[in-house]
């Protein structure tokens, strides 16, 4: 156990910088007031860009607070990835925030998002279940507020309450599991649990209850039902944030938990993951097939993607972990590209039905192209990055012997390809008398979309990225 001193606070720089950002937001709100929209958004975006940049500084890692907080290279990487994702979300939200309906609530939006991000960062770095739980709640409660952000809309409020109540239930169940783990293993510190945890019924109970709590956040069947409704009801940018950042962080945390704390129970959680991932892929795809609303559609698409993520986790190897992180990074960029375009269109026209996308390519080729890249990436079609992510997930799963799971997964990719192509079809093929008119998005939106597209196009080609991730990953088999 290392001795803590002031210097070691630098380990926590992601969180600290973000908390500072929150404070500066508040300060700016007080000093400048809410009237100056341009200043507010520029300030927020700039500040967050700075925070993101700071995250990338090469700074050491270690543990603090008696093991309650710990960072490692892979944690830092994940936080950086999340930061970049949130940056893109910010850029994509600005046009929406500037609208009349959000008069006087711009700073709050940024503040809530950053605070959930802080929560996720703490969750990632948690060294015991208390911090983990706090991080989880910090990532959830403001999220419900964000989902209910459009106070005039029934759907938004409905989304908020559904998310909050179900999240509370899930965290209640998770807490019950945690309490069992505590009772059986004397400690809530991960380091102690890794030592003490053994294969007994109470631990299995705890494992599953904790797993359920996280599976809820990743939208794993059968804990996923909130996803579609909340995604549909929440404002577009919040949906995008939830589907990307929140899900990615939870998936990552679940993976590290399973790989470290529940290492001894790997056989048990393998079963659980196997069953749920098959269910998730299949159900997600089957529901996505028939959606007409783009947000709802993407909700089910993201559920299906979560099932794929499990392929890497279930592999349990260093390869599995590295591909999961790699996949998550790609997933973030791909989904943000798709959501970005959907958001741009929604902001401009208020349309969010897939039928409205008919003939989009003729009027807005750039948007359609970005969307295409994003969808191809989600579907796993080369040369965009999603293909590499999925391919490696399959490889990792098969490497650990999950042949039939992989076969089920590839069959599911085909179903998913069908509905991804539906949007392609709408944009390029189906004629439309009244297509969405040609419009130009603002600078922020463009920047956000370009960032996402560059990510999609480049991650696959630079093998070094995966190399780096692999080197800092770990598995339970080694």
């Amino acid at each position, binding site marked *: 156990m290392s001795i803590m001193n002031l210097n070691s606070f630098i380990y926590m720089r992601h969180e600290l910088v973000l908390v500072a950002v929150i404070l500066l937001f508040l300060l700016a709100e007080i000093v400048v007031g809410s009237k100056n929209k341009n200043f507010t958004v520029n300030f927020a975006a700039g500040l967050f860009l700075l925070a993101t940049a700071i995250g990338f500084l090469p700074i050491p890692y270690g543990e603090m607070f008696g093991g309650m907080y710990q960072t490692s290279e892979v944690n830092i990487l994940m936080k950086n990835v999340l930061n970049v994702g949130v940056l893109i979300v910010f850029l994509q939200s600005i046009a929406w925030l500037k609208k009349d309906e959000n008069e006087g609530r711009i700073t709050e939006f940024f503040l809530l998002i950053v605070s959930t991000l802080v929560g996720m960062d703490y969750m990632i770095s948690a060294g015991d279940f208390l911090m983990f739980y706090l991080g989880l709640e910090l990532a959830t409660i403001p999220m419900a507020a964000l989902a209910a952000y459009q106070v005039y809309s029934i759907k938004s409020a409905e989304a908020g309450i559904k998310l909050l109540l179900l999240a509370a239930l899930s965290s209640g169940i998770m807490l019950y599991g945690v309490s069992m783990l505590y009772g059986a293993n004397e400690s809530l510190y991960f380091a102690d649990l890794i030592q003490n945890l053994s294969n007994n019924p109470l631990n299995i109970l705890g494992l599953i209850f904790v797993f359920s709590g996280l599976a809820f956040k990743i939208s794993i069947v059968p804990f996923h039902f909130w996803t579609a409704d909340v995604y549909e009801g929440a404002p577009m940018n919040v949906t995008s944030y939830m589907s990307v950042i929140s899900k990615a962080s939870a998936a990552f945390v679940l993976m590290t938990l399973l790989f470290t704390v529940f290492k001894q129970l790997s056989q048990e959680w393998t079963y659980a993951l196997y069953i749920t991932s098959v269910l998730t892929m299949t159900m997600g795809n089957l529901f996505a097939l028939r959606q007409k609303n783009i947000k709802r559609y993407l909700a089910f698409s993201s559920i299906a993607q979560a099932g794929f993520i499990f392929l890497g986790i279930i592999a349990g190897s260093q390869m599995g972990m590295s591909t999961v992180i790699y996949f998550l990074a790609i997933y973030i960029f791909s989904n943000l590209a798709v959501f970005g375009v959907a958001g741009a269109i929604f902001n401009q026209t208020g349309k969010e039905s897939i039928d409205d996308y008919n003939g989009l390519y003729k009027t807005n080729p750039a948007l359609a192209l970005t969307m295409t890249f994003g969808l191809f990436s989600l579907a796993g*079609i080369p040369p965009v990055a999603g293909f590499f992510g999925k391919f490696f997930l399959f490889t990792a799963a098969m490497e650990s012997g999950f042949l039939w799971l992989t076969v089920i997964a590839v069959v599911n990719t085909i179903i998913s390809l069908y509905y991804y192509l539906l949007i392609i*079809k709408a944009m390029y093929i189906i004629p439309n008398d009244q297509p969405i008119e040609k419009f130009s998005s603002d600078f922020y939106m463009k920047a956000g979309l370009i960032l996402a597209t560059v990510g999609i196009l480049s991650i696959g080609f630079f*093998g070094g990225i995966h190399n780096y991730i692999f080197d800092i990953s770990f598995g339970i088999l080694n």
Partner: protein
Amino acid sequence: MDILSLLIVIPVLTLVAIAFSKSYKQVRVIAAIGSGIQLIQSFNLVWQYLQERASGNTATMVFTKSYVWFEKFNIHYDIGVDGISVALIALTGIIVSAGVYASWGVKEQAKEFFIWLILLATGVFGFFIAIDLFTMFVFYEIAVIPMYLLIGVWGSGKKEYSAMKLTLMLMGASAILLVALIGLYLYSDVDGGVRTWNILELAKVTMPIEAQRIFFPMAFVGFGALGALFPFHTWSPDGHASAPTAVSMLHAGVLMKLGGYGALRIAVGLMPEAAQEQAWFFMILTGIGAVYGAFGAIMQTDLKYINAYSSVSHLAMILFAVLMFNVTALNGAVMQMISHGFITALFFSLIGMIYGRTHTRDIYKMGGLMKVMPILAGSYMVASFASLGLPGFSAFVAEMTIFVGAFQNPDIFYRITAVLVTSSIVITAVYILRAAGILLMGPIKNEEFKELSDSVWYEKVTLVILILSITVVGMAPLWLSNMITDSLTPMLQRFAAL
């Protein structure tokens, strides 16, 4: 820049140039220039390859280059060619050029059309030069997916349905294939050593037979679906019927060959033990395909359907030959890929041209076109004769090689299926002549058709390129045959050990 990567770089540069061009006229000129350079480069490659072999290089693959891509998976951008891939690259170069001229008349969204078309070509070239399974698969998918938009946007008829069906079936097959490829990779270290995706390395590994039994059918069906293996061929008639001319040409002419090539080089080439064990099953499927495709073609009235079913029949022969495990049949398989590529491209281009004039593809609505458009009709006649395997045209050479090869196996079951497949030459004659007879001969059915014009210059370019290729291969096949046979030697050594 090495000679092989140029084959990818040239189309990519063409793509970029097209993306920045202003009008459809510029676009097609750029496309023509780009594909022309690519064609020259393809021939240059053939020449260089023959030189290399003549100079005594007996390596399995020549011009190999290797760049690390994903180190931890041992994935490389590995390229290299042997006689088979060189021949198919030349085929691709020719058909892409012909295809560009065949789409000279595309004006609606011409830029996008050519971009997707050339992207498709890029995928095909990449597939043929790759010797790393992963790289190969990447290019494979790049080649398949543009089909969706090409058919969906520029197609005709039930284009949306057809495009979706085609894409889903092909991608579905490729997904199954993917599992097989990963399986190959994972078992590549059974003899010790590191895991690899490299075909040359994999060829040295003897995969456990239990694993082969799982992965061989996956690989064979995965590639086979693209090669119109019965019963996974149903995307083909609809897809071809809906696709625009150049796309049909490229797809039937080149893309479907990826299936045969992969089945030969990967499914059978790397897992021969299981291939031999399960050959009987797939021989039944291919045998059915060859005969049944031909029978299916007899009753069609849509020109494109006729040709699509004909492709099913002819491509079944490729897969059939691949399962024969002797040099003659394998040689025939590759020859058939090349031959069918040219012939079917010629057919589809002609169908496109005729359709462009008559606005119908129903043979019963046409007739006596020979009188009105002698050049097109004559070319159609040539294509017909070539397709039914007349000497002097490439198909004869290819089919005979396959038949002779198929007969070298004394097993009675092989013999019976071989006879069955051979019988397709009769049925082929029936449907080809039926179509040609109704379409080109007899009285002119529609008065309006008397005013129709014959081919224009760019159509002639297409036709000349293709007919010339067909006859050159048909009349002087020896060099090609030798080039292919040489490259089959390593594979046959592996089979000999069975």
